[in-house]
């Protein structure tokens, strides 16, 4: 089964190898002339002061954590979507994946409950202006 991922592995090896090759070649072949001025960090033409690591606003963090939460939500949606046919069938699917017994709302309702809660979360975030950048 894992053999089917061989192309991916080859791709990764190729990508890493190509990048390494390019970097290596520039290191070996490229001309190197350094001076004190050249080594100085460049900052909009003005003299750099202090560390480039400045404290970020908490807004970034907030957006990131909200993204994470809704990302997890989507992670649940995917298997649900791929299983939806089975979930909305009262019996088991036949070999061809066709529902021979009656339809069921179960699959729809369970995801609806889940989504209602998270849509409420979204509405809450939006109403609390947590998505405003100002």
């Amino acid at each position, binding site marked *: 089964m894992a053999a089917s991922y061989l192309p991916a592995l080859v791709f990764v090896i190729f990508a890493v190898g190509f990048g390494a090759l390019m970097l290596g070649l520039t290191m070996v072949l490229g001309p190197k002339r350094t001076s004190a001025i050249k080594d100085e960090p460049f900052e909009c033409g003005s003299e750099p002061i202090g560390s480039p690591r*400045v404290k970020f606003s908490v807004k970034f963090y907030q957006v990131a954590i*909200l993204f994470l939460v809704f*990302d997890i939500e989507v992670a649940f949606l995917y298997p649900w979507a791929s299983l939806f046919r089975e979930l909305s069938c009262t019996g088991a699917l036949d070999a061809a994946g066709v529902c021979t017994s009656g339809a069921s709302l179960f699959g729809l309702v369970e995801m609806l409950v889940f989504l209602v*809660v998270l849509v409420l979360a979204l509405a809450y975030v939006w109403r609390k202006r947590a998505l405003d950048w100002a």
Partner: protein
Amino acid sequence: MSGEELIFYLFAAIAVVSALATVSRRNPVVAAVWLVVTFFAVAVCYLLLSATFLAAIQILVYAGAMMVLFVFVIMVLDVDERGREEHRRPTRIARVGYYGSLLLAGGFIAWVLLGTLARQYLNPGADLSKTPDFGTANAIGREIFTDYLFAFEAISLLLLAAVIGAVVVARNRRDREKDSLQTGMSHAARHAAGVAELPPVPGDIAPPGPTPVTDFGAPSATGHDGGT
């Protein structure tokens, strides 16, 4: 040892080594990058164990979203670089405790490994990965949406609590940032001062440690704001 097993052990080793690197690096950004490596190596292990859906989620949620969050947290916190360099020599007791706990942890891990091996070779279960759709989104979904229905629905409430937490905690910080905006400090000065300090409230404890030091030194009089 088949090629597949070889790759598995290779990536398992990468995962362990990069995890060790994650916890041993001083620079938090470097540690975070090592953590990405760990996540990817673990994802490959999942793949080789036929847990394909889990591998995809591992990449999407952990290596993707979680790492962005970590990096942002590091930037929001702005761990002081100078503070990290100044390390007092640990006392003898601290060193004994350190190595003692390392030994304990090592013993514990060895115990778990032995237990796993014993379980694997003396009392192996059926190889579930041989079932046709093991580890696919369908197989996992079938569990989540039937047997673990309650857990699935309750997770929505858990996520809701996390969202509320993000909004409430960040709102507190944002209010303080806004406060400092109103006091008329420059952009750089606000960076330098970190979050604006509120006037002390009776019953408050003193802020732990010295006030945050950055490389800015005194708030810049020129209003130069760090090159933005």
